[in-house]
């Protein structure tokens, strides 16, 4: 009887605070802020690959470039020193991390054979060999050395190329150099569009 009464009384709250003081209270949660995730990452400065404002970005990779560490990018944010963006990034730039790690990134050379319904993984060597064979065959067959007026023209216009406008200058330079070297004239770029 008396125990029950006592229990009820406790429940009613009289003893609550005293019980809490006796140590039944849960551990106070340590209200520490989340750890700063970039503290020991490695910074690499780069240029945003989207539009032509070409904002400066800083990529933060895991690890300190030690031999045994594979530097994976964990965060990208604006470069505050960059005169144009001064650290800011637009929604595309702010989401660069998800582009770098997109599940839709290509990882291996693949081929889709004529009439096939699927991709097949191939080696780089097979890819280069087969593509170069196609190209040489077409070039040898359709290359025009002289036009109908007898002028040397040395052009190849049956294999066409459209070049990226997101590749680097160095890459673009090598592309135009090799395409011209092969005699390509059906050659254009996204930059026109």
């Amino acid at each position, binding site marked *: 009887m008396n125990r029950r009464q006592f229990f009820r009384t406790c429940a009613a709250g009289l003893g609550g605070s005293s019980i809490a003081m006796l140590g039944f209270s849960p551990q106070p949660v340590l*209200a*520490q802020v989340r750890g700063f995730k970039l*503290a020991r990452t490695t910074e690499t400065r780069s240029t945003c690959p989207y539009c032509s404002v070409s904002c400066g970005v800083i990529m933060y990779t895991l690890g300190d470039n030690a031999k045994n560490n594979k530097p994976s990018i964990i965060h990208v944010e604006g470069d505050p020193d960059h005169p144009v963006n001064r650290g800011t990034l637009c*929604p595309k730039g702010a989401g660069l991390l998800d582009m770098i790690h997109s599940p839709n990134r290509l990882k291996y050379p693949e081929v889709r054979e004529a009439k096939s319904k699927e991709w097949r993984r191939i080696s780089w060597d097979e890819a280069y060999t087969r593509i170069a064979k196609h190209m040489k065959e077409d070039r040898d067959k359709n290359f025009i050395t002289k036009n109908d007026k007898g002028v040397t023209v040395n052009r190849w216009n049956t294999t066409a190329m459209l070049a990226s406008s997101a590749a680097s200058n160095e890459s673009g330079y090598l592309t135009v150099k090799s395409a011209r070297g092969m005699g390509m004239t059906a050659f254009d770029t996204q930059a026109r569009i």
Partner: protein
Amino acid sequence: MTLQSSLDIQARSATTTPSPSVRSSAAVAKLIDESKCIGCKACQVACQEWNELREEIGNNVGVYDNPSDLSASSWTLMRFAEVEDKDNNLSWLIRKDGCMHCADPGCLKACPAPGAIVQYSNGIVDFKQEACIGCGNCITGCPFNIPRISKKDNKAYKCTLCSDRVAVGLEPACVKTCPTGAITFGSKEDMVSYGEKRTKELQERGYANAGLYNPAGVGGTHVMYVLRHADKTEQYSGLPKDPSISPLVSLWKGAFKPLALLGMGVTALAGFFHYMKVGPNEVEDEKSREEA
């Protein structure tokens, strides 16, 4: 701003005694200048990226607001409103919605879990999910409809004002990324005076009703707006004009709490003393049986 990995706590949910409060760090604030906001959602994405959140791929429901509402993984959101004045002049009013970091936070007041919501001495109101019990009282208490309970873990989430960045001396991710300089960050004092300066500039530009939104009803906020039409805050996707903690919540989490406890105690004590004074009401023969 303090340079430490943990910020001093000024207030703690469900805690009746004061937190250590001798040291006080300078209050910080974020100012959102609506007149410069283009609704690009960079803040949304930067918030996701920094805080390691990813929103579900939703659907378009006929508006630019995507995702269509705040969620446990979307702590800030651009809200778009097409408003025509009486002369048919169109404005596209875009407001970055998110936690206002009230000086008098309704969420903290309503929270029953000790330490699940804390207010740092710099003004940031932060949720500690480890201590959260998922009751949703923070939602009930919030005058701005901000906190959201996660479907995944039933914990409440909202903007932390990037407390982890602020703690090491950086500005929040949304502030840093904002392309047009619509979001700025600094000491509350500086932000108030910058906001007042911007207000003046906008008034000179022809927005006679421009104003700084730092509502007194919640003790001022650590996220403030500069609005071109401060007289019609509701036009900005329902920004309350004079927000305050609902009187219902104040009563519930205020006076009623100790009084009710007292009431229950008094009732029990009354019984105790009644018994001691008047004694039991006995039927004679039964009493003897009991005692036997």
